[in-house]
């Protein structure tokens, strides 16, 4: 399956490489570039070309190392270049004009590509309030029989023991359940969901009821792992991220790195299935209560004068 974000990433990085490819000749072969663009008759052209070359190198650094949306800086640069070339075109004739026209056409094509890639970054699924559907996957292998693993998950009331964002799930008994999740500022948000698929030992699906504040659906698959490796558990979650305030709420629920959050949830699920508990360290003392993990203290305070209670 092709991940659209990965494609955007590749495109953005490719433009970064292209920026470097354009910038370097402008700086080291300024005269040749001036001839190519038909502006070798202008004493000021080399300076402009070198400035553009330097700017291209900045683009390259931004696009190769920075976030995807920096590709918009290229679009801005293209607009500048088109304006400059437009002026060059206006006062030239003959062969120079032909070369300047060709250069302008090339820049226009580059602009189109930049705008296209830039517009893709608007559709990225980062769960940071950008509207649109969001799909998350994660898998883990659990050292238990599929039937056992299925049974634990099938009781939705168990989910908050390992799912970070959930506060509680209450089953109504008719396939419907009420889910309550942690919202910002210690508040909570809840919605109702129904069971939409149930194949014992193999698959469970659920979906929020229409009109829910957090529109979501999920499926978990269980399959025997090869050899004595237990059960492969694969989760697919769908969230509908609306625009505006509601979207920000969903984004908060999913955290900065939604995919990582799902993986961490599954890891805690494995801990519970294999060891009967969520593992806690001194750095993460609230292990079993997953929602407290966000408030973990990073380390022991260097100076705390609490006395020993062992002696």
């Amino acid at each position, binding site marked *: 399956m092709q991940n659209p974000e990965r494609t955007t990433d590749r495109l953005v990085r490719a433009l970064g490489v292209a920026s470097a490819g354009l910038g370097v000749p402008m700086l080291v072969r300024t005269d040749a570039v001036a001839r190519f663009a038909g502006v070798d008759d202008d004493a000021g052209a080399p300076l402009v070309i070198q400035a553009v070359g330097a700017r291209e190198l900045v683009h390259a650094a931004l696009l190769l190392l920075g976030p995807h949306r920096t590709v918009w800086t290229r679009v801005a640069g293209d607009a500048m270049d088109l304006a400059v070339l437009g002026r060059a075109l206006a006062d030239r004739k003959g062969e120079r004009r032909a070369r300047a026209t060709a250069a302008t056409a090339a820049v226009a094509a580059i602009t189109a590509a930049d705008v296209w890639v830039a517009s893709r970054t608007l559709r990225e699924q980062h769960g940071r309030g950008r509207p649109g559907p969001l799909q998350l996957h994660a898998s883990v*292998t659990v*050292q238990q029989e599929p039937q056992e693993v299925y049974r634990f998950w099938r009781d939705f009331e168990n989910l908050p023991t390992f799912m970070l964002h959930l506060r509680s799930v209450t089953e109504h008994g008719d396939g419907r359940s009420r889910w309550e999740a942690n919202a910002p500022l210690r508040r909570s948000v809840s919605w109702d969901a129904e069971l939409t698929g149930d194949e014992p030992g193999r698959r469970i699906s659920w979906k929020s009821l229409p009109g829910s504040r957090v529109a979501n659906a999920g499926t978990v698959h269980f399959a025997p792992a090869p050899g*004595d*490796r*237990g059960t492969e558990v694969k989760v697919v979650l769908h969230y509908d991220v609306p625009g505006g305030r509601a979207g920000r709420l969903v984004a908060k629920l999913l955290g900065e790195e939604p995919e*990582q959050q799902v*993986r*961490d949830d599954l*890891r805690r699920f*494995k*801990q519970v299935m*294999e*060891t009967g*508990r*969520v*593992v*806690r*360290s*001194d*750095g*993460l*003392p609230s*292990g*079993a209560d997953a929602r407290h993990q966000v408030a973990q203290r*990073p*380390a*022991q*305070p*260097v*100076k*705390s*004068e*609490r006395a*020993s*209670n*062992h002696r």
Partner: protein
Amino acid sequence: MRALCWEAPAKVGVHTVPDPTLLDSRDAIVKVTSTAICGSDLHLYDGYVPSVEPGDVLGHEFMGEVVELGSEVTNLRVGDRVVVPFPIACGQCRSCKRGLTSICENSNPNAGLAEKIMGHSPCGIFGYSHMTGGYAGGQAEYVRVPFADVGPLPVPDDMTDEQVLFLTDILPTGYMGADLCGIEPGDVVAVWGAGPVGYFAIQSAYLLGASKVIAIDRIPERLKLVEKLGAHAVDYEQTTVLEELRELTGGRGPDHCIEAVGMEAHTDITAIHVYDKAKQLTKSQTERPQAVREAVLSVANGGTVSITGVYGGFMDKFPIGSVMNRSVTIKAGQCHVHRYLRPLLEHIRRGDIDTTSVISHRLPLEEAPKGYDLFKKKKDGCTKVVLTPGG
């Protein structure tokens, strides 16, 4: 309680910190009677391991008395004297069941952090950065020991702390380094690093049947110490290691090479050393790979390079061509201490392994910062520091 805390690179201090408490019914609280400073602690001390935070309690080699027990720990009693393996292991995942406890799949609550650097996560480790769980370490008066029904091993009263303390880490680590080589009678083994891990790797290689063990280091008292174990000592500052090893093995190279140096390997100031150090300082490489490179190039065709030295991330200029073309096998791992505890305890008891001659300094916990400095700079003949809390 008092504990040794990391403060900043090359700065540690003993502070009063909160006592540990039972967080889970499979926990124990151990009152530490002896604890040691490990070469691995030096990597944290120097700031080469990511995700160590000011205030973190260090130490993963410790033993002591059980003072509190969670309700599910039925194999121990309050008052038991135990050694505690440095890897934290659940005993129930597939890796644990296969005896590979240092890759326990459940004991690192921060596995996500480790995955980002290593792809998959190793186990949780006491006092060894947040990437391996953020567990408080054992250079302290008390430690919380998770999965206490799996790790701690009670030790006989007639054995002293110093005799058994190194079962927690460096003895099994050196042993596993040799064990992974699959030594056959007649094999020649070379060991890089005559520090505490090298010291035990050498003894283990002989125990497992090596005909000759060559030790490579440059610190005179360490080379002297391993000569007493019967090793042929090579001072890498006085010779070219690759050539010397060829000479010592009839041109074949050692059948197995054990690397017990780690990410802060030292070399003479050569271009490659400057290159490595610069890359490490600018974080574009996390390791100084001198010893591993040398081990790979030196090993005989078809031989084994067993890496016990700790590496954190990425290295440069790794001689992969030598590995591939010459059928070299690379083995590595944090030690699966649990599987070696009982057999090695027996070896100590029978006197097959000398565990105490390596100790050069015995200090109270309060003087731990001095211990770090001595061990780090290998000053004052320092080969291993044992700390005693309350002493």
